[in-house]
């Protein structure tokens, strides 16, 4: 347990001391800042870009929902990809650099190694996205004068279930595949498969594929039952983590 705490501390320390502290928070905060502003000015931009053809484009006045929708879409489409790229080397990078040998020849078990990686990455992801959501909420209120907390919190929470599940998938992929690119490929493959599954109604209702459209649906007030996607998403995160531990235990370093 002592070695686990020491290694978990190293994981947080490493996030703070390396490029990791800039990339994910930088992107998430950029999206959080630009989302409400873009939602506000999009109608004017479209009007300005439309040529003077005599056509009249009827665009309703933007509301807080447009800002939230922008945030929800950015999480699903952009932050998911960033997550896959950042965490593709979460285990394999330590194997390649020899630091896995450094720590695993000490009283640190391989399961503790994997679990610490997941917990630190998960806390980093949750903290970053929660901060981004808070910025989105504040700016939405500043720009639109109205920013109900509940739909934003629900949409962000649902995406975090997805994010934690994808993090589990990436930890597994990085434990199985030796290269960053290979693990990223597996992550993108999982993303594409679930995206395809999300056009089939039963999959949306009973699998993690339902988590992909859920944040936008919550913002638009048309979300269906979310218990199935949430439970299966959390289950897949747990299964991925268990599979990562099993695979890493079998690996020779």
């Amino acid at each position, binding site marked *: 347990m002592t070695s686990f*705490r*020491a290694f978990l501390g190293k994981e947080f320390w490493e996030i703070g001391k390396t490029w990791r502290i800039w990339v994910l928070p930088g992107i998430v905060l950029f999206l959080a800042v630009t989302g409400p502003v873009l939602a506000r000015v999009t109608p004017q931009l479209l009007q300005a870009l439309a040529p003077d053809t005599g056509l009249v484009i009827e665009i309703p006045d933007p509301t807080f929902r447009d800002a939230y929708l922008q945030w929800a879409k950015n999480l699903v489409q952009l932050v998911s990809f960033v997550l896959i790229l950042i965490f593709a080397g979460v285990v394999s990078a330590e194997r390649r650099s*020899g*630091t896995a*040998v450094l720590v695993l*020849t*000490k*009283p*640190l078990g391989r399961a503790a190694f994997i679990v610490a990686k997941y917990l630190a990455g998960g806390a980093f992801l949750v903290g970053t996205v929660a901060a981004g959501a808070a910025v989105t909420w504040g700016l939405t209120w500043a720009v639109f004068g109205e920013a109900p907390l509940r739909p934003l919190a629900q949409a962000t929470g649902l995406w975090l279930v997805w994010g934690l599940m994808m993090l589990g998938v990436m930890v597994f992929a990085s434990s199985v595949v030796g290269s960053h690119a290979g693990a990223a490929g597996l992550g993108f493959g999982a993303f594409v498969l679930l995206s395809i599954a999300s056009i089939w109604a039963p999959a949306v209702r009973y699998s993690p594929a339902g988590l992909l459209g859920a944040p936008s649906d919550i913002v638009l007030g048309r979300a269906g039952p979310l218990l199935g996607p949430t439970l299966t998403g959390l289950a897949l995160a747990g299964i991925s983590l268990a599979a990562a531990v099993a695979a890493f235990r079998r690996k020779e*370093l």
Partner: protein
Amino acid sequence: MVPDRPAIELHGLTKLYGAVRALDGASLAVPSGSVFGFLGPNGAGKTTTLRILTGLARPTSGSARILGHDVASHAVRSAVGYLPDVPGFYPWMTGRELLSFVGRLFGLSGPVLRARVDALLDLAGLSGVKTRVGGYSRGMVQRLGVAQALIHAPSVLMLDEPTSALDPIGRKAVLDMIASLAGRTTVFFSTHILSDVERVCDTVAILDRGRVAAQARIGELKARYGVEKIAVEAVPTAEPLAAALAHAPWVTAIERSGGERVVLAVSDVERARREIPAAAAAHGLGLRRLESVEVSLEDVFVDLVGEG
């Protein structure tokens, strides 16, 4: 620690990588408290043995024990310090931060950890270095590697080719660190540099193609496997003497270095000492020198492993 029990024991250790037999029934026993040289040419299986001993790889068959525990058991880790052949450290840490982190992995904290870190940075000659590990030279990395392996005062220290990539000054520094541990820690030290072994080790094993070809204290090994040699200097030339002794039953080989000197490999030293002066006198030669040549570890190594 039980005094008579070997610190490290291998029994019929075999490791296959597909069709390649990296270890082929290797067996040895490393005495407690020894500085043990694990010698072998490149590809003999030294690193594979160390990877099995540290739990990084699993044997195909056979067993490996450290301090009486199977190497797969978690208990072994707390008693062992390990430096791999190419150590990997977090480049964003300083040497002090790395040693503190490794100490915490072993459950050290507070004043004890700080004292150990200070002492080991001093031992490694890195006390005043503020640079991050990513900016260290190869020699500094290797010395930091030995230091991190010692942070918990291990009973067994395993070093894989710790000097192979170092310049003479770096090599000396690492060897001095190893020599300073003699009698306090069992050091298991793999290398193919024979002079390093002669300098710091008291016992050696020679690994050849996955098998332990010999294991003994260095002196015993030389006595057991070394061929006795006698150097002769005769005037005006040693050539007639070499020709005369070439067919003597106690001469096994002759190395001519030209002119006055010849080196005879002999099977019976006493008979050689009696018959060489007689042969010189019979050929009208003056004997300037007649002395035993000390058997080197290199002679034993080449004899056991072969030159191919």
